[in-house]
């Protein structure tokens, strides 16, 4: 069975400090991995996907198949990064809209 685990419910960091959100998954096969973000009073939106190997808003995420992890990192947190972050997985044969989400990590960046 596929599963996505985000061990931290809450992550509190100071502005300018590095931030890392952990995500581990279990899946037999090659999944598609995503990070979604929900800012206060806004809708859930895609932040980045592993297949693109991109950096969005200073965030990067590396897929480590050996450790089955997809941690999200940013070297210098900003106050506007305060939000709820969800790691999500889609099967390689499914639509990217059919997602298995982790429980989410609330990030609070304090000045």
């Amino acid at each position, binding site marked *: 069975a596929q599963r996505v685990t985000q061990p931290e419910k809450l992550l509190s960091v100071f502005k300018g400090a590095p931030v890392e959100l952990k995500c581990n998954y279990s899946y037999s096969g090659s999944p*598609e991995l995503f990070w979604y973000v929900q800012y206060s009073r806004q*809708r*859930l939106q895609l932040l980045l*996907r592993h297949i693109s190997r991109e950096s969005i808003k200073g965030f990067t995420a590396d897929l480590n198949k050996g450790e089955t992890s997809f941690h999200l990192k940013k070297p210098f947190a900003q106050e506007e990064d305060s939000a709820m972050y969800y790691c999500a997985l889609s099967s390689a044969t499914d*639509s990217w*809209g*059919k997602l298995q989400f982790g429980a989410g990590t609330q990030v609070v960046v304090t000045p």
Partner: protein
Amino acid sequence: EAGVTQSPTHLIKTRGQQATLRCSPISGHTSVYWYQQALGLGLQFLLWYDEGEERNRGNFPPRFSGRQFPNYSSELNVNALELEDSALYLCASSSPDRNTEAFFGQGTRLTVV
């Protein structure tokens, strides 16, 4: 461009009643997905409709059902409401192209009393 719209924003129902939630996808999108976000349970995949057909459903009882109309809008129906059905229900849509992201609506907050 208008995003995914859901109605109503809030819905209060009594246990045992039926609830109908509506979703209008982004223009040009043919797939609609429904998710439940209950307190303490996170986001759970409910249903996926594409071109009017149900493509997949999550681990939910049959009293959760829905349909997709010819204009690709969708309804989620929850029959015989139970207190634990109280949750935020999110709808998302995606284009017909393979491997494209899904865009989410603001959700409908269903409260069962």
